[in-house]
């Protein structure tokens, strides 16, 4: 198994764990954290390809990850603000109960 | 401007830092066990009993077990038992003496009221403050023997007050002798006359012992 394959498998596994957390847990914060984990898995891929795959421009992978981290930060900020707003409305963080917008 | 107050404060602390090295007014710590504090003469701690003769402390106690201090003590830390017999006091007059005189220093609050009410100048305030002990009960209950200290000691700790007391006592004694002499003369003159009452001891209710 080449290093690239190892990295990709690690990334896939991390993505799956993130997915499981996001799907199975009902707490909004945990769901958000699961999504962050999935983002991290994607970033892992960028770095893996940048490092172990020839042909890419020298810094593209790194720059992609930097952008992704920045976007993730923005996403987390907004997401947690939503969590707090959600909490203020229904006094808990159970996403199943956040159905007010359903028609 | 923001920060000027803070800078002013920093200046004060810096001044104190430097001052603590050369200015005794800014460095007031006494390193206690090595350097003993200079106690003012008025300093009071726990009471002690005055005796006139250091060689026979219990025999020359001024206390006549009148129990006024026991009664007046606010926290009631004094316990006195009168003797059944009488012993001659310093003037040679037979007096009741305290068979038991105990002060519970764990209760005593050093208020000095016993000293103020004592008509005999028998109880005074001590200056020993290093009274720490590992025993909470027996060691803090001082008995007659532990409480008794000679008049010379009283002179070393409260010289002014002791001199006054001695002068007053000497005057009292002289007056008593004078009176006794007069009474003896009168008795000689009128053998049938009834026995004169013993010279009343100077009441000191209105003259606190520290009056100028």
């Amino acid at each position, binding site marked *: 198994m080449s290093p690239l394959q190892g990295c990709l498998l690690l990334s896939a596994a991390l993505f799956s764990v993130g997915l499981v957390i996001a799907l199975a847990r009902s707490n909004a914060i945990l769901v958000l954290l699961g999504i962050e984990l999935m983002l991290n898995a994607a970033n892992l891929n960028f770095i893996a390809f940048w490092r172990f795959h020839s042909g890419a421009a020298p810094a593209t992978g790194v720059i992609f990850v930097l952008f992704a981290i920045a976007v993730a930060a923005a996403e987390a900020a907004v997401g947690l603000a939503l969590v707090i707003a959600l909490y203020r409305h229904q006094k808990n963080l159970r996403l199943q109960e956040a159905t007010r917008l359903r028609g | *401007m*923001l*920060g000027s107050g*803070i800078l002013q*404060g*920093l200046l*004060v*602390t*810096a001044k*104190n*830092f430097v*001052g*603590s*090295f050369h200015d005794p007014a*800014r*460095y*007031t*710590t006494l*390193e206690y066990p090595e350097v003993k504090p200079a106690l003012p003469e008025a300093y009071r701690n726990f009471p002690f009993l005055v005796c006139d003769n250091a060689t026979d402390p219990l025999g020359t106690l001024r206390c006549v077990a009148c129990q006024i201090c026991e009664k007046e003590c606010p926290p009631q830390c004094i316990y006195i038992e009168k003797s059944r017999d009488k012993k001659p006091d310093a003037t040679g007059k037979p007096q009741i003496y305290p068979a038991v005189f105990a002060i519970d220093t764990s209760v005593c609050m050093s208020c000095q009221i016993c000293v103020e009410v004592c008509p005999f100048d028998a109880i005074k305030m001590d200056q020993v403050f290093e009274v720490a002990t590992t025993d909470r009960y027996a060691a803090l209950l001082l008995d007659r023997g532990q409480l008794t200290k000679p008049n010379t000691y009283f002179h070393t700790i409260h010289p002014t007050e002791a001199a006054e007391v001695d002068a007053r006592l000497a005057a009292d004694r002289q007056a008593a002798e004078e009176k006794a002499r007069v009474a003896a003369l009168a008795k000689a003159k009128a053998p049938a006359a009834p026995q004169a009452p013993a010279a009343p001891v100077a009441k000191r209710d209105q003259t606190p012992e520290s009056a100028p």
Partner: protein
Amino acid sequence: MIAAALTTDSFLERLPVLARDTVTGRLPESWRWMAGSLLEIIAILAGFGLLFAYLTLAERKILGRIQNRPGPNRTGWFGLLQPFADGVKALTKEDVVPAGADRVLHFLAPVVLVAVSLLGFAVLPFGRHLVAVELDTAVLYFFAAGTATELAVFMAGWASHNKYSLLAAMRALAQLISYELPLLLSVVPVVLVAGTLSTTKIVAAQGGWSLGFVPHWHVFTPWGAAGFVLFMVAALAESNRSPFDLPEAESELIAGHLTEYSGFKYALFFMAEYFGMCALSGMAVTLFLGGWGAPLAQLEWIPSYAWFTAKLLVLLLGFIWIRATLPRLRLDQLMKFAWKFLVPLTLLNLANAAGWSLTAGWTGPLQLVRWAVALALVAVPFVVLGRTLSAGSAPRTYRFA
């Protein structure tokens, strides 16, 4: 110049490196790197461990003198053995863990804190030849390494199962989020002007003297002076020192996140606080005070690490002095101070530094203009923002009946 060249690489200067090489030289080739690193780690641990020990003593002594009392002076000559007595006491004291505590986190918090607070030392250039790890991204590494400290404080506060500790944990989080920003932003101008994130290169960029006696330290430029002050203020907050010691505010929260700690764990917290203080002061020396550079060319014969240590000690004394003087801020004031005062000032300072480096070519009278503009860019916002910050609170005059 020749004399300088001779003295800058004197025997004393190279002594620590020589000592390391003598030891590692006896080892087989493949072990040398590992052994060298290990030696560096031991040297840093021993050096700063000793500094920590005597800093606690110095703090108590200086605080004592400022407060007109002697400070600890019973253990050993002038109390010199006090830190060791304290250490023995901390080691032998009972380790109490509250019944409801999260035992794992309660144990991990001090360990993580000490470990993390030590990481920053790796990239500090203590001397001309003394830097444990040469990193291209050293400054970034330093601040990344420091981020976990407040996380550990949070762990301690939360795991203690104590309401005061929990309040302290919340305060610690709020404080970190607020002060990480000005701390980083006050460093950016230096990176901008020096054009590098490497600490050694930043120190090298501050070498040399103008007019023969003014060193090219960043603190001697308008933006650098402002940046230095801003950095130190944020560093005070980051290391939880008075007047920003809210997480362990003694008069309000008993001991905050430390309330339920005793014995050696408590000592570890203490140690981490001082390590953090040393690391941040070391960074300030590196970024603004010319690192290991001597203030005068004539003094270059003194080894560079001595200069670094001297500057470090001066900053640490400043920490102690401030602690002895100032009252504590309240949480909302702390936040207001960070967001409404420090952050705008650091941003303006960044612009100021950018302007400074753009106008580097100006000479003659233009140079004066450059200084005037830069000074104005520091002073005017300070006065204006300071006025708005302290609006509504001023000394009052009183009437008498």
